[in-house]
């Protein structure tokens, strides 16, 4: 009876591998690549003990501990210790996300789409799909552990021996195991794929927060978080294997529960009650703008939190910067020659440029959502009612402009609040605010470009991303790679006066704003004229 439940699991494994023959390798290769490239970059950037100790000093604060985990290797901050300290947690989170997304896709996702029903109508065991999904994911995580472990070892970096590197990989793989099992469980509990993803992400987020609080205040607390277990391996410093086995043990337990729950439930049902939604709309929803906001609500909130954290993470290192820069050649080169301003101020202008460009990402996303909606034939609901095309595109434009500002504001606030607690002589909020807001015209130009494409040539909206990518490349790396100056001037971000290092340049800002206005106007006009696809 029990065995019969697994009939044709092998065939299902092949089928899942076939469906994910691109997706899975892309995940594994990019994760491995990112890890290896970071290790190489660390080895290049911090080649002397002195430089490593300098960066270790910037890590000695609660903000950093909360963000990346306890710095158990700070006293002898080897490249390995640095990898484990700065990269292990975040990579583990990404591996967790991979497991969550892939497991949901093959379990509740397929079930919701009615595909599992087709599979079940064939002579296939009831547990075959779930078992096959988990076997594929577990194998993928083992492969990932080996790829990363062997890859790190092959870099031949001092302090990163074979068994330690394998432990680094294994810790990541264990995180993948755990969240695959957790997602399999929630795929049984929740009635739809969104719920399964949502609850699994909630576990991931909770694990992060419990660990953050625990690492700062009470170490025992961290052991209640699976991410705490992963960091508990103390890779490249103390190298404990037992937390990996602990994680795998819990994984097997959760897997068993998930399999059991799958056998006792009906297809397309769940255990958690799906609460009925609203029968009526709130007044806030009842306009195109209201709908746009509502559809992007989750995205807006997560970007907002993210931008604040990015700001805070930059802010938390500001206090120890001078000593760090003094000892690091590469970083000084990136910042260019120092005049009469401090290195911290120079670094600040670069942070501002980077943050402004990151804030442009959500702003563009909010604007280009319109194209996505059009593609899905949902704009016709507006156009076939008494909503003008300008109201439609205007709603997305307004969201983009407003939240472009809000994101930048949150990033600056995060920067200020963290720098306030770590710097001896904190920078005033106002000067940070000015230094950030001066980038608004550049963001407007980027939004204007997106409007232009949406209005005139929707097939080419992808170019706005390319332009942003280009800007990031030339502005962020331009100094380091010593690009000619005109390359930077092709980007709107290259025309922004870097306050407080440079003079405030009203003319440039006014010109950028004018360009943004022209682009937007042309986009609006084009949108009014052109056919909608749906």
């Amino acid at each position, binding site marked *: 009876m029990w065995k019969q439940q697994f009939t044709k699991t092998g065939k299902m494994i092949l089928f899942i591998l076939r469906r994910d023959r691109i997706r899975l390798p892309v995940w594994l290769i990019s994760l491995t690549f990112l890890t290896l490239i970071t290790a190489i970059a660390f080895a290049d950037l911090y080649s002397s003990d002195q430089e490593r100790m300098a960066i270790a000093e910037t890590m000695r604060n609660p903000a950093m501990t909360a963000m990346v985990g306890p710095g158990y290797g700070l006293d002898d901050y080897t490249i390995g210790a640095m990898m484990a300290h700065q990269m292990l947690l975040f990579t583990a989170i990404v591996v967790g996300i991979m497991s969550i997304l892939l497991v949901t896709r093959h379990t509740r996702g397929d079930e919701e789409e009615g595909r599992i029903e087709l599979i079940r109508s064939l002579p296939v065991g009831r547990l075959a799909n779930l078992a096959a999904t988990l076997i594929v994911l577990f194998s993928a995580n083992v492969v990932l552990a080996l790829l990363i472990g062997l890859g790190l070892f092959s870099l031949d970096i001092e302090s990163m021996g074979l068994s330690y590197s394998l432990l680094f990989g294994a810790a990541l793989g264990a995180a993948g195991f755990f969240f695959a099992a957790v997602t399999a469980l929630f795929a049984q509990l929740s009635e739809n794929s969104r719920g399964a993803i949502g609850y699994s992400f909630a576990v991931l987020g909770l694990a992060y927060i419990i660990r953050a609080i625990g690492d700062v205040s009470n170490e025992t607390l961290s052991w209640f978080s699976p991410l705490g277990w992963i960091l508990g391996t103390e890779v490249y410093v103390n190298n404990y294997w037992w937390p990996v086995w602990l994680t795998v043990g819990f994984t097997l337990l959760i897997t068993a529960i998930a399999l059991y729950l799958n056998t006792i439930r009906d297809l397309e049902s769940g255990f958690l009650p799906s609460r009925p939604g609203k029968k*009526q709309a709130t007044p806030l929803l009842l306009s195109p703008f209201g709908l746009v906001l509502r559809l992007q609500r989750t995205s807006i909130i997560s970007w907002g939190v993210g931008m604040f954290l990015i700001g805070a993470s930059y802010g938390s290192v500001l206090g120890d910067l001078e000593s760090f820069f003094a000892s690091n050649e590469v970083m000084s080169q990136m910042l260019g020659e120092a005049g009469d301003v401090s290195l911290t101020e120079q670094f600040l202008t670069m942070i501002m440029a980077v943050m402004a460009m990151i804030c442009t990402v959500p702003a563009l996303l909010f604007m280009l959502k319109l194209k996505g909606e059009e593609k899905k034939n949902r704009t016709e609901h507006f156009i076939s009612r008494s909503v003008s095309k300008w109201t439609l595109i205007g709603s997305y434009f307004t969201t983009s402009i407003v939240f472009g500002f809000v994101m930048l504001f949150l990033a600056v606030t995060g920067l200020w609040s963290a720098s306030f607690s770590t710097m001896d002589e904190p920078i005033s909020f106002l000067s940070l605010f000015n230094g950030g807001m001066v980038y608004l015209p550049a963001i407007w130009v980027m939004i204007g470009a997106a409007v232009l494409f949406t209005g005139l040539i929707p097939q080419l909206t992808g170019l706005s991303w390319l332009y942003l990518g280009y800007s990031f490349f030339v502005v962020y790396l331009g100094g380091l790679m010593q690009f000619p100056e005109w390359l930077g001037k092709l980007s709107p971000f290259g025309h922004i006066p870097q306050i407080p290092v440079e003079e405030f340049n009203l003319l440039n800002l006014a010109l950028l704003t004018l360009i943004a206005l022209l682009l937007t106007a042309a986009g609006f006009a084009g949108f009014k004229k052109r056919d909608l696809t749906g």
Partner: protein
Amino acid sequence: MTVIRARGLTKRFGKFAALRGVDLEVKHGEIYGFIGPNGAGKSTAIRVLLGIIKATSGEAEIFGRDAWKDAVEIHKRLAYVPGDVNLWPNLTGGEVIDLFMKLQGGKNKSRRDELIQKFNLDPSKKCRTYSKGNRQKVALVAAFASDADLYILDEPTSGLDPLMEKVFQQCVLDAKAEGKSVLLSSHILSEVERLCDRVGIIRQGEIIESGTLNELRHLTRTHLLIETKEPITDLESFKGVYELERKEDQTISFQIDSEELDGIIKHVSQYGLLKLESSPPTLEDLFMRHYEETGKPQASGAGGEA
């Protein structure tokens, strides 16, 4: 009074001409059936009328206003139901209905609730969980709950079960009784036959036939089944006789062009009629006849323009 008037509508997508000079008129208070196979240009024509896409040439007017320029004004008095309803997965059906009604400008809560009940829709469910039929119900409830003067319905019943189709047909007839106009594009010919006052058939971007059902029937053949005392042998030689089939000796079934009906009856009555069964052509016969024929469509217009 004319509610929709289209003259020589042409729409090109690159080289492909989706509409080639479409003329269309929907009069006040009538239900106009718009039929044609997939890809014939029904939805394109409707989208031009809605101002979602702009005609390459030709005129399209609704309520006497330009369909492209005055779209927003026109849409205040118009309700549209697409054939393929795409909704936002994370909103509930109730929320979407409210949003649509608000965008339309109307606010008739009791009518909304009544229709939700009639169509047996659960408004508290997220749109992601709805089947095609349920998504269509959302659009139908929003449309019929609004106080529109013109309903443009593009294959609105393709996902509905027969019970719900009845409810839908009643809604359309109620709208007509209130003096409203309806443009109904449909595949379900029995539905068109039951509901529509006039019909237009579109093929490859051209209206090839339009008029009342009676007028259209004139253009087509009547099915006859006769039994005579003496055998008739010379029917084949008559003009306008098709698909002749001799069953037993004396029973013959055949189709006859409507304009030849008089002559043929006079002829066969000489043989001593024992039995005569005549069935009018169904819309399906008409439709099939147009689409099975290859080559040029027949010249249109007999009685179609009014």
